[in-house]
């Protein structure tokens, strides 16, 4: 009997801390169950650099620079279902704390006035992505199909969400799995 076609999943972290990816790995031995149904495209696990055609894209982190937008648009173009995973992707999160401070003042603090700095210089290599003056959640840039809040979403929420989605059900979180912190 031919093996059923696996669901192809891509993941990435934009302006995030990879904490949501760590929470994803926290589903532990259920990863083996998951691998029976899915295969991975671009993720930090496979080290594939660009997202190809996929069924599901899981995005961690908000949008803080031009590169984030390119990656996000590549995911949106290639993923049938795009999911904002975690507080940063859903609200901007911790990186959006800088939204109340002018970008130049942020750079000055980090590169000019930081403790132990002398003759500081703000990096301006053309290879560095252009930072935005504010950090935004991903749904303010592309259409997002689902949001999975939490900092990070607990492993139980990620598992519930993925198993619902893979089974063709509308994902629904239990009260204790829906958290913003």
């Amino acid at each position, binding site marked *: 009997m031919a093996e059923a076609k696996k669901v192809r999943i891509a993941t990435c972290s934009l302006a995030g801390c990879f904490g949501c990816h760590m929470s994803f790995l926290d589903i532990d031995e259920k990863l083996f169950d998951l691998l029976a149904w899915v295969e991975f495209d671009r993720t930090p696990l496979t080290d594939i650099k660009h997202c190809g055609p996929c069924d599901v894209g899981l995005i961690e982190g908000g949008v803080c620079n031009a590169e984030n937008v390119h990656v996000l648009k590549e995911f949106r173009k290639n993923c049938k279902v795009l999911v904002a995973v975690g*507080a940063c992707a859903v*609200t*901007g999160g911790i990186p959006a704390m800088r939204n109340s401070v002018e970008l130049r003042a942020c750079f000055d603090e980090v590169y000019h006035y930081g403790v132990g700095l002398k003759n500081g210089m703000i990096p301006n290599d053309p290879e560095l992505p252009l930072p935005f003056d504010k950090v935004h*959640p991903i749904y303010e840039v592309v259409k997002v199909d689902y949001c999975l*809040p939490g900092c990070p979403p607990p492993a139980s929420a990620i598992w519930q969400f993925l198993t619902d989605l893979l089974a063709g059900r509308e994902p629904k979180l239990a009260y204790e799995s829906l958290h*913003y912190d």
Partner: protein
Amino acid sequence: MRRIWALSMSLKPSFSLDGQTLAFLSGQTIMDAALAAGVYIPHLCHHPEFKPHGSCKLCTVKVNGRNVASCTMPAAEGMVVLNDTPELNEARRALTQMLFVEGNHFCPFCEKSGNCQLQALGYFLEMLSPHYNHFYPQREVDGSHPEVLLDRNRCIMCELCVRASQDVDGKNVFALGGRGVHTHLIVNAPSGKLGDTDLAVSDRAVQVCPVGAILKKRHGFEVPIGQRLYDHKTIKDVQTGDGHG
């Protein structure tokens, strides 16, 4: 005796709330009667100890087909009130989302997380994202008081601190200033600083804030995240159960 009691009950005015008959006393609002009967109507700016404000509109119900704020609408004989309907809960979710994007509500680094009524309503209404574009407004933080922190980023303009300061503490420390989107909490001192008022940490105005805008200093994370008021119980269970929260 039993018959007399039953007769007096039947003479009490009543209205229908989601098909349930609720008796009420003259002068009670729909919200008063519902809370007395242990029926939950979502709300943020309302608190049973204080005069109704009617501003957050989360307690909107349908009375005889029209939307009204249940915290200000007097109960009347024979009213047909709808509360827990998909349509009203969707509107409440949208209002909650607007409150989230209008301020700077970042739950992961807020000391109120788990005890916050705005957040708890988000959970109760199954709000998965703030949906609208964030304003990321510039709001002032006031750390001038030795024992109380005022973080306007989290203020939802419910005026509970204003009412508590005036009606309970007899102090008039807070007020709302500005108009429309520029509305903000102001402090009644020539400097505008909380440290220059007679606010005490024991004041009702400090206790009543439903969000993390007014916080007691040096009490952060005394209760760990995961063991807080709304971490395991919904706001409905808390407010219709052992206390208002």
